[in-house]
């Protein structure tokens, strides 16, 4: 299984845009008001640092995924123990995304279809693509879905040009201080930090020496997309109204009305979003399955899908309500990112550097 550089770019962009634009805009506006666009740029900065860390570490171990080189560096027992939180994080993320997605589709589109059926269809599809081609087919899919997502978003911005009111952004940086802007950037920054999945993805690149530049391009596309979406939401609705919406980007798409003729284009965006959710879920199903086979020393990683897919499906059904989803996002920000995104990669980096030195000496 091999990935090209372009595929890595689009895997990052597709998987991250979906969550950031869908879930993180209105919480940021709630805190930072009309300066939320600054928070998004700051969040991007956090993302760049975290991504740099993850890519740097995995580039030191070409051709090896996280579970392999953590055992190499830390020994069999501790190396295995330290990656357990990654499995937890990735499974919980998948459960969270699957449930949020199914709830949304149920609310907006298929109100007569039970939520579990929507989830089942998605799980069946992602199990299929993961089984059929693993990371290669996911990469190929992202190569198509990613650009389509970006282009669609671009068009929704253009079609909203008539609704833009520039004064909504003023006064710039006055009502709230740096503190608030920084506070608002933590949550989206932690979502950008999702790139710690690259610890396991870079190993599949056919030209691993290009990993850094390709990851950064992917992240850059995401940051620009999130920044543009946040600014556009502010420009169309202003800070007070957009903080009141749960999915403000979806709402600006709904307010498109050109000559009373181009309306209700939100349906396109929904379909594009399904692509993104599908790509993201498949990616994590693959990562968890592949890494778990490394963990158990099982040769055929495909067998692990039989465990992962039902687990994600059943857990997503079991999620009782929205409160759990909000709690998970808090957990992601306060525990998972500090541990999986910063702590472990940093430790591994130091260890690999020390090892290299001792080998040279």
């Amino acid at each position: 299984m091999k990935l090209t550089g372009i595929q890595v770019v689009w895997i990052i962009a597709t998987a991250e845009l979906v969550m950031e634009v869908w879930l993180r805009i209105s919480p940021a506006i709630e805190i930072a008001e009309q300066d939320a666009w600054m928070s998004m740029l700051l969040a991007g900065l956090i993302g760049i640092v975290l991504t740099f860390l993850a890519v740097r570490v995995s580039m030191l171990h070409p051709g090896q995924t996280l579970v392999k080189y953590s055992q190499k560096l830390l020994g069999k027992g501790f190396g295995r123990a330290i990656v357990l939180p990654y499995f937890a994080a990735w499974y919980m993320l998948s459960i969270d995304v699957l449930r949020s997605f199914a709830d949304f589709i149920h609310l907006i589109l298929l109100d007569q279809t039970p939520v579990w059926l929507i989830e089942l269809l998605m799980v069946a599809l992602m199990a299929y693509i993961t089984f059929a081609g693993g990371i290669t087919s996911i990469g190929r899919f992202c190569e198509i879905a990613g650009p389509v997502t970006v282009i669609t978003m671009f068009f929704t911005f253009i079609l909203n040009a008539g609704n833009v009111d520039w004064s909504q952004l003023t006064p710039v940086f006055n009502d709230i201080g740096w503190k608030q802007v920084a506070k608002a950037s933590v949550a989206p920054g932690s979502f950008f930090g999702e790139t710690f999945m690259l610890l396991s993805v870079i190993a599949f690149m056919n030209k691993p020496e290009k990993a850094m530049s390709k990851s950064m391009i992917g992240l850059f596309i995401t940051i620009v997309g999130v920044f543009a979406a946040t600014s556009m939401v502010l420009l169309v609705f202003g800070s007070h109204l957009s903080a009141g919406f749960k999915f403000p980007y979806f709402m600006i798409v709904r307010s498109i009305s050109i000559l009373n003729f181009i309306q209700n284009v939100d349906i396109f965006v929904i379909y594009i979003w399904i692509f993104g959710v599908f790509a993201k879920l498949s990616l994590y199903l693959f990562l968890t399955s592949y890494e778990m086979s490394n963990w158990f020393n099982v040769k055929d990683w495909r067998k692990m899908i039989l465990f992962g897919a039902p687990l994600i499906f059943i857990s997503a059904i079991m999620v009782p309500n929205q409160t759990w989803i909000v709690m998970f996002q808090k957990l992601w920000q306060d525990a998972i990112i500090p541990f999986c995104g910063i702590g472990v990669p940093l430790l591994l980096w130091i260890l690999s550097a020390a090892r290299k030195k001792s080998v040279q000496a």
Partner: protein
Amino acid sequence: MRRAGKLLLALLLVVPLTACWNLEEPDEQAFVLGSGLDYTKQGEVMLSSQIVVPSGIGSSQDGGGSQKPDSFRMMKANGKNVYDAVENLQKQVSRALFFGHRQTIIIGHRMAVHGIGSFMDIFIRNPQAELRSSIFVVKNAEAKDIFTITPIFDPIITPTLSREIRSMGLKPYYFRNFLAESMSETKLPLVPLISLNEMHKYVYAGGAILNKDDDLKLIGFLNAKEALYANWILGNLNRLAITALVKKGDGNVSVKLQTLNHKVHVKPSGSQINVDVHLTGKGTIVENNSNLDPTNRMDLMTIQKALSEATQTSIVEMVNKVQKRYKADIFAFGESFHRQQPVQWKTLRTGWKEAFPLLHITVKVDIQCKDPGQSSSSLMKSFQKPG
């Protein structure tokens, strides 16, 4: 065998693709084009809806004189809140009510007086087309009275109302604007107002000011002229016709302004806050019943001065009425202050409601006639006895 299995699977996948899933076919739906909210004497919400009758809309060619059914039907139902009324309305309609194409929301007079704030939640929680709908308040009538009007040009009244706004030279006022204003810090919404005339047709009647700090209750009305002026200050006006008496020329002159500009300057000095409103308009003279010749520079200056002064006086009157009587910042002066004096705003922010009636507002109107039209002095002269 394996191939047959795969083929069967593919065929199974086709079933959901035919979209026969949620069964939302057009002939199962009742399309609601407009909704009205009224408040009954018993304290209930009355929801009136204009529902399209598809068989009544078809092109005129195939009709050939045969009797066509009406293109719409007005239905109404009461309820404890808006959705309760929707459910009660559904009992009278055999097809599922569909609000995704709603174009207009109309607030009845009594509802506006009662305050619509407590009924707004459904429009944000469950927005189908609300962000693109227009919103109106009806003066001295109920919303349902508007929906029964058969308009002149369109088969249905709802699109006519938005066109009416455009024909008045106003920018469209969407529900989304209304929501943003209702949720803003200081600005009060000025919602387009319609009323019924003696012929039981609608007429543009100006604007209704709703109190965003008190359940969106009606504060007062502006008449058509005043509402246009207020929208000029807000920058929501594309064109305006002005007619004024030119004393020196012993007659009146009309000018059609095509380019309208507005500038609001907020200047705090000491404890007093000055607000300078500068309005400029450029346009064409369309009617000249005075004995002045607009191609003559001096005469043109006289005409422009008279027009500017007359307009200025009316606008100052309107601003005074809003400021002293209604005490409602519909001009977004608070937002201008916020943008122009962001640092000082922090101390004033909470007290803006009290500060607004004390503002020292000056209005300056500057009208320029760029084009005297296709004749020079008034034709009136040729019909008068030479003397």
